[in-house]
């Protein structure tokens, strides 16, 4: 049960340069909240195309009241989930947010979400915005 985020558009230009946007997101996937719950997870690959270290410190969305960066781990057969204060992406490197690891914890969803926009911040500076078109896939 998951919603795949299909389209990535609308990179805001505040940090862009002539060679292209400094941060690009690909392979987006947003799991639907399980019945009876209001939390879900989003996974994506973030690529830093710039020469500077990028630190994602905040993620927001008009469609969700609260989004946090979390990391799930299983060590010694104990499952834990912790909030991550920032996500570092080295110059010209990619970071994959994936199942069983770092993910975006999507909370307080609005009703009847059809499109999801994610805003990623590096300090006060808005790095990018993603407009997505969800589609429902099977289990």
């Amino acid at each position: 049960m998951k919603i795949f985020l299909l389209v990535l558009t609308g990179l805001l230009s505040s940090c862009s340069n002539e060679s292209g946007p400094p941060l690009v997101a690909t392979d987006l996937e947003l799991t639907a909240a399980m019945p009876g719950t209001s939390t879900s997870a989003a996974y994506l690959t973030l690529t830093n195309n710039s020469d500077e270290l990028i630190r994602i410190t905040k993620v927001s969305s008009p469609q969700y009241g609260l989004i946090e960066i979390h990391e799930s781990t299983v060590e010694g057969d104990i499952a834990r989930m912790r909030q991550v204060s920032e996500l570092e992406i080295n110059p010209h490197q990619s970071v994959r947010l994936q199942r069983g690891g770092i993910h975006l914890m999507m909370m307080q969803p609005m009703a009847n979400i059809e499109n999801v926009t994610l805003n990623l911040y590096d300090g006060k500076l808005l790095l990018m915005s993603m407009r997505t078109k969800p589609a429902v896939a099977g289990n």
Partner: protein
Amino acid sequence: MSPRNLILAIVLGTVMAVGIWAAINLQRTKAQPMTATVLNAGPEIAAFSLLDHDANSIDASVFKGQWDLVFFGFTNCPDICPITLQILSAAKRQLSESGQSPLPRIVFVSVDPARDTTDTMAQYVNAFGAGNLGITGDIEELRKLTSGIGIYFEKHDGDDESYSVDHSAVVILIDPDGRLHSLFGTPHAIENFVHDLPLLMKPWT
């Protein structure tokens, strides 16, 4: 016996011996669980009083009469818990399609009863298929259930909305007498359960 017949007899004997050895070892390999740790006379589930997902009062006898595949987690866990339950559901579906009998019941026990009401549990466990059982209720009663079988859980402080609960990620198999039979450690995979469960879940008399 001529030298030629003697050589032939030795060759035939060697071939037969190798064949028998291979057959015995192949059978032994097939008959062994690949992942599960099997306990000898595991502990009986301790007495407790909790609620099933239909808000019925239940006690330890709920684990008697069928094989139960049990996972402990919480519904606000967006990642490991639904993935594990999807693995168990897929394994059960594959076993059913292959004609396995008996099949296990999938049981999800909440380690976050403050947020996981019976209504929440009903919607959650039913999303993974029919016949599943959800258990929640008083946290002290929950500890009676978990402590006797070595299941750990502890709330991790966070804000009211997003606190998490650390918990054991093992899947346990309870036999129809209500005893801990075996456990599956992490990482979980569909093929591990499909391989091992038919070896573990013998018909029960």
